């Protein structure tokens, strides 16, 4: 797909985000709204790249406390422990629950990280107007959208346990500060990937420039 194509935006056509009505608009930097539903019209999502960057950076920042701080505090009559994500995985691995350890590790550590790296890759390539592998990059974006919600697995587990296991002195489970940070990371990456406009991947392959 290296040859240049014609895009709707190139032709001055623009679709409404809300009702998907295609309308024609002047190629000037004047804001316009949909003649049918009145929503703002943009050729591309406005500020997509910068918003995506902002959310991504926030996600990166929160990823650090999410992994360093306590995810879950479990207390029982005989022991009291605080677990970070990694220590929880290690504990699961040690106690023989290798499958669960692997699942937790992938869902909680690898996927958010890969997601953030992929988004970074997409953003960088878009900003550099790279023409490199646009189809693969689009596929990567679709994967991101698909997989994003599953990274919340950890949060689900912790919130469920925290709500259910409240046996007083016998045993308690409390969500630690890392759970909040981790949830924020997942939400921010999801928002970031939502903010990303995959059409930008293809823009460098068009005949005309879009402002």
């Amino acid at each position, binding site marked *: 797909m290296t040859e240049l194509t014609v895009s709707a935006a190139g032709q001055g056509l623009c679709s409404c985000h809300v009702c998907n009505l295609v309308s024609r608009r002047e190629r000037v930097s004047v804001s316009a709204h949909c003649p049918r539903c009145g929503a703002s019209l943009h050729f591309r999502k406005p500020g997509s790249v910068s918003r995506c960057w902002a959310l991504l950076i*926030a996600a990166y*920042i*929160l990823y650090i*406390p999410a992994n360093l*701080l306590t995810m879950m505090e479990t207390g029982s009559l005989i*022991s009291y422990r605080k677990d970070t994500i990694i220590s929880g995985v290690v504990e699961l691995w040690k106690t023989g629950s290798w499958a669960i350890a692997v699942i937790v590790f992938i869902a909680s550590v690898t996927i958010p990280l890969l997601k953030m790296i992929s988004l970074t890759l997409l953003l960088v390539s878009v900003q550099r107007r790279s023409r490199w592998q646009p189809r693969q990059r689009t596929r990567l974006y679709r994967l991101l959208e698909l997989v994003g919600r599953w990274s919340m697995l950890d949060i689900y587990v912790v919130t469920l346990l925290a709500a259910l296991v409240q046996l007083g002195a016998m045993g308690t489970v409390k969500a630690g500060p890392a759970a909040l940070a981790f949830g*924020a990371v997942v939400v921010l990456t999801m928002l970031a990937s939502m903010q990303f406009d995959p059409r930008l991947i293809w823009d460098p392959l068009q005949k005309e420039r879009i402002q």
Partner: protein
Amino acid sequence: MNDTPQKPELSEIPDAVSEPKRRFSVQLVWIIPIVAALIGLSLAVKSFMDRGETITITFKTGEGMEARKTKIKYKDVEIGEVKGLAIAKDRSHVVVTAEMSKDARGLLVKDTRFWVVRARISGGNVSGLSTLVSGSYIGVDAGTSTESRDEFIGLETPPAVSLDMPGRQFVLHAADVGSLDTSSPIFYRRMQVGQVIGTELDRDGKGVTIKAFVRAPFDQYVKTNSIFWHASGIDLTLNASGVKINTESMVSILLGGISFQTPQDRLEAPPARPNSVFTLFPTRDEALKHGETVETYRLIFKESVRGLSVGAPVDLRGVIVGEVTKIDVTLDSRNSELSIPVEIQFYPERLRAQYLNKSQQVKPPDSRALLDALVANGFRAQIKSGNLLTGQLFVALDFFPKAPPAKIDWSTSPPSFPIVPGSMEQLQKKLMQIVQKIEKMPLEELAGDARKTIQSLDATLKSAEKLLKNVDGAVIPEARTALLEARQSLEDVRKTLGEARKTLGGANQVLAGDAPLQLDLRETLREVSRAAQSLRVLGDYLEQHPESLVRGKREDKQ
């Protein structure tokens, strides 16, 4: 994609409604990473602030401790956690790395003590039972020093008394620790007022040092002159008044304990300062004994002291005035003579008290002058047998007026007290004298003389034998004839005697009660008696009837 059908549609695409551009270009979205950064930063700062000091504690073993699980607790409040356990480079101990919470910063001073709290069951107390379920933890006793530090040496046993408990600590020296152990009770008038907080062997190995803690209101009763003794076990005394059992409490029977007391007459003494050193005596009697002044003397014996033991009494006519503390043996290299110096402790106050009773008014002379005076009068020490069966000896002090004059040698240390040999020794001496006298006798000359005597005796015997032979040859035949004659004469004599016996037998027959002669004689005598009677009757008749002589007997017709 064919353009022709689409073209008209394209023209039908409605135009977007233009609107004026808003002057609002600041991207609000950048607030999100800023907020995230702020949150992250605040979390980082918070965790940094919360992060207490990391300290290391060394223990002999890591028993019961686990990294990231074992807590450090002060007054049962968690103030830290063990982060790691490692073995020291020289493998002699375990280094525990612990992270303390920030509130614990003030606790990390020089004299803060750490120990591992485990379930302990010892004698009187059971502690740390909760650790059976929850696992061991490290206990902390906050120090009072202001010098902070982060390296500590952990205690192997929990301290019996925490540093903030009001009271005073004292140091006791004893010969042995007895049944005492950490947390053994301390009694004052049978009230438990404190406990032993540590026992250790002296560095020179010659005794033990016991650290005792007396709780606050009671520590004032520990005076500078207080006496301490082992209150362990049962003190059973059997004497003329019966059996007396003396004990402090059941606990002290099981655990051992220490009692202290201040002599009644000396209550004015100031309270003892913390860490004062006292001597711990084995019994109360001993302790009371040692409340008095003690003077040490040396008695140098030449005789055997077998049966004299350390602790044997020094007796003054039945009153114990001291005891034997040391028995040595020394060799005098000049004359290679063995002597046995026996050290005794002497309680002069007992003597002086008796002295005082004699003359209340007079101020007693010091014991030196007193003893000098006594010694001049023949006051001596002597070893005596206390028990003939066991051979136990004791040192008796008494007056021996006949003893050779002696003086106390004050120049030596301890002063040497004059002695007289014991009764056994005297007996031995006499035996020795006898033996010496025997030795002095000229036994060889005597033996020579005896031999000579025997030789001459031999010669004498020989001549005697000759003489006897001569006698045999010359005298015996004559003697035999003489003897024969003598025998004949004897036989004659025997015959004569036989005849004499016969004669006597005849006489006997004659003289016997049933002999015929006697019977006859008796018959005759009866006849005579009857005749005499007739004569008397005749006489009477004639007297009454003299006429009858003439007329004859008259008839009874009248």
